[in-house]
């Protein structure tokens, strides 16, 4: 099939929300033997893929894992989900929008809850946006124009390694002659990070001080530095004044924030304050703000769920209409209340990220995991169904962290079914079952 030293270009990396689409993959004997342009995280996604795949569906029988066929796995999923009173369909951030759409429709069909990993990462950002809006832009707009960049509670050098080279500090810019020299990077964090090392200004604030610092900056930008105390959450007033001036002098500023702000004390109110800081700056010059989304297609799940259900995540169809109330209809809350009596986990790893009580509950109920690789969630699930990997042996739509939809490319033929086809089959079988009841 593939010759030695085959090279495929313009591959879309399915790892993080940067969704780099300039990856070159080398194939030898039908296996990935080399990756160019990708960061370490992305390269390993490709290079380690073949060795880590689960061979086929497995089912827990007592203390043992038993190999089962895809038909048996689907039949189990159909029966479990059809009979569940309060099914939870969670994850969705690593799969394509085509699969996410079926997930939203399936939740409606079985009166379940559909939620994505958003609820444990940028869910608070969305709550803030729902209060005050979101002045943002595409990443190329930042690349071509921004002379001032803020990373707040975010360490892209380690979490989104190519963010700086593709979209910000090290990227080519249309409107700057020597982009790297002309750009200023300001980092706000509670500790020194790899990113703070390259910052022209590092603002080290106390844990939980984000809201205070943002309020102080807003006051200064509004001309009310008189109300700001000498120290704000460990930051000297003089530094805040200096930073506020840098922001006002920017021709184009871009603020990127990570889960360091969304998942610390104050949660969505921090983000609201950051957005309103950017709103305020727009009265002086041009500024935008953007969340650093984690999973490759977590933003796609928000988009798809929104056009189908009306809400970006945490949608409960138990009453036949779409009902949304994060904190109540979010996966962690439903599991912590031990409400869910069956779970479908798609392309995510709650076993590695959820609180212990939620994991314990997942281990007690029938849990069906769709993941190509063994993960922490494997240890909690009843059945695991491996499927083709989006961007390697499956293609479909993914939304970059700035909302740009890109089609991932399939460049390997492995024989694994896609999650889209598996979900479609499950949906259709449940629909037929319902019609015959």
């Amino acid at each position, binding site marked *: 099939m593939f010759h030695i030293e085959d090279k495929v270009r313009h591959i879309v990396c399915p790892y993080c929300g940067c969704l780099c689409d300039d990856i070159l993959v080398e194939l030898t004997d039908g296996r990935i033997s080399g990756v160019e342009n990708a960061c370490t995280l992305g390269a390993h996604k490709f290079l380690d893929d073949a060795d880590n795949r689960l061979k086929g569906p497995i089912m827990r029988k007592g203390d043992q894992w038993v190999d089962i066929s895809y038909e048996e796995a689907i039949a189990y999923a159909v029966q479990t989900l059809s009979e569940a009173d309060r099914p939870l369909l969670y994850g969705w951030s690593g799969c394509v929008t085509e699969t996410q759409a079926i997930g939203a429709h399936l939740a409606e069909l079985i009166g379940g809850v559909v939620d994505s990993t958003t609820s444990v990462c940028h869910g608070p950002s969305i709550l803030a946006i729902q209060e005050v809006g979101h002045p943002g832009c595409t990443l190329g707009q930042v690349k071509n124009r921004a002379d001032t960049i803020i990373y707040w509670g975010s360490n892209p050098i380690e979490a989104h390694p190519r963010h700086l080279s593709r979209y910000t500090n090290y990227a080519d810019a249309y409107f700057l002659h020597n982009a790297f020299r002309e750009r200023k990077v300001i980092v706000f964090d509670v500790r020194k990070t790899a990113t703070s090392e390259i910052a022209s200004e590092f603002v080290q604030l106390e844990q939980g001080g984000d809201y205070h610092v943002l309020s102080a900056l807003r006051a200064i930008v509004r001309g009310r530095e008189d109300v700001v105390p000498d120290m704000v959450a460990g930051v000297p007033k003089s530094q805040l004044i200096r930073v506020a001036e840098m922001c006002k002098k920017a021709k184009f500023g871009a603020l990127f924030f990570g889960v360091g702000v969304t998942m610390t004390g104050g949660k969505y109110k921090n983000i609201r304050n950051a957005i309103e800081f950017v709103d305020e700056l727009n009265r002086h010059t041009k500024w935008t703000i953007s969340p650093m989304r984690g999973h490759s297609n977590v933003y796609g799940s928000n988009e798809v769920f929104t056009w189908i259900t009306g809400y970006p995540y945490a949608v409960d169809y138990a009453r036949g209409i779409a009902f949304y109330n994060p904190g109540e209809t979010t996966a962690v809350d439903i599991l912590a209340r031990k409400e869910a009596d069956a779970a479908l986990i798609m392309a995510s790893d709650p076993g590695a990220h959820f609180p212990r009580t939620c994991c314990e509950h997942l281990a007690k109920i029938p849990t069906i995991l769709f993941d190509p690789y063994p993960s922490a969630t494997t240890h909690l699930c009843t059945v695991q169904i491996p499927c083709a990997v989006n961007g390697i042996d499956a293609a479909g739509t993914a939304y970059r962290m700035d909302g740009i939809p*890109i089609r991932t490319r399939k460049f390997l033929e492995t024989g694994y079914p896609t999650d889209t086809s598996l979900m479609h089959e499950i949906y259709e079988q449940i629909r037929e079952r319902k019609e015959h009841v």
Partner: protein
Amino acid sequence: MSELLIKNAYVIDPLQGIHGDIMDISIRDGRIVDKVSGSCEVIDAAGNLTLPGGIDSHTHVCGTKVNFGRYMSPEDMRAGRTPRRGAMYPTSGYTVPTTYGNSYRYSKMGYTTLLEGAMAPMEARHTHEEFAATPMQDMLANTLFDGNWSLFEAVGDKDIRQAAAVIGWTLAAVKGFGIKLTNPGGTEAWGFGEDLASIDEEVPNWDITPREIIDTTIRACELLHLPHSVHLHCNNLGMPGNYRTTLETLDIPGDMNPDRQTLYLTHVQFHSYGGNTWGDIKSEAEKISDSINNKPQVVIDMGQVMFGRTMTMTADGPMEFRLYTLHHNKWSNHDVELETGSGIIPVYYSRKSSVNSIMWAIGLELALLVKNPWQCMLTTDNPNGAPFVKYPEIIGLLMSNKYRSKELSQVHKLTTDRTSLGSIDRELSFEEIAVMTRAGQAKALGIINQGKGHFREDALADIAIYPVKPDQTDPSLQYEEVIGAFQQTLYTLKDGVVVSRDGEVITGVANRTFWSKANLPEDMDVLKSPRFVEKFSRFYSVDLENYLVQDEYVQRGVAMNTGVNS
């Protein structure tokens, strides 16, 4: 082979010159035919008004900013929830419903074709994904070129052929239908937080003016023989005194196309303001409509405002920021690199506000003062002026002076002095409404030959039967019946299939996406231009190869072939 006969239909088909005859309509395999066999299924229209399926030539229903309007507004989603009913999925939303919500509500009102008013090329896949989830209508996407750098270069070079090459390539690359210019030049200026105050002000960094962008784009559009003309959202939207900009813009194009207009100006209500401030704002609809009445090469749509809550959303980013500084409501903005911008804020149009009341009156004035209904389409710029579910009320206002007077007496008292609405006694006929909601829209979009907007033999059997008997109804007095009739068809047929009946969606048929495929000679191949390709290798944040919208996104695409004369 499937056949259907609609009997006793009160047909108005302006494109065929049928002005209200009781007749039968025969359908075979989704198309209008001369006759069908005696044994086929029959629908008795019983003398009720029967029109070609409704067409909306300017609405925002699918794509990045529409979805962001939903995303940021759970309060709006809660305001319009429906559960699953038969073939209908649950829906959410009032001003920006979910895709199925839009689709079902339009279908229930007899609409079978929608043009999404603003698609950023770089985000086209998103629009197409939502088109696929808007099953009851055939879809078209006007594609934004207002801040397109490659187009700007062609404008700067005064190279109409190169402009056409860029436009032709882009439309085919993103499966777009027509050219949309939103605040041309202004969205690029907004990249650095600026806007343009006139069509002769230079776009910062580009050495070109909006006038040059508009003029070059119109000429390029005609060179390409695109089905639709340039579709323009003028500069200075929503600014008191902006009617001067609109009049200057109206003077740009000559009459270059015998089959349709040369320029389509959208939501002109928002562009017909006199005065200098919000305090002395007044209507200049008379001057605008005088100009249009003298220019057969121009078609407009109303952009009617109706009172109540709605969501404003446009590629016009700087305008939305101005609106934000007025309302202090939540504000979203989304600039798209090398192409365009966008912004969203929710608003409440109040009849107690002088400005809002004057806006309401201006839209109606335009529809009543533009003499030829083929030059004025009925829209609200959904949802900017109002959600489209308000169309029937607008029809009522246009058909009944009595209703209009009653409503005028309820709005802010300054409206009578600052607009001419109270002195207009024209009442539109059913035929004029049919022109403004389907026949004229089909002509303006250039989709008559695709079988849209009429019942000629071989036309698509898209049909709306409304529960009103025009020969027994006086809309001037019975406006409430007329409004009720346009809110809910007896039957909506798409491709010859009854898709909704008495307000219930029964079934769907696979919808189409019309897109423009320009077949260009070799010297117009932009991919041979290093300057064009360099945009992708250096300044876009996606590779050229990943920019092109794959066929998977237009599985039921209808390519409309166009090209330049050789």
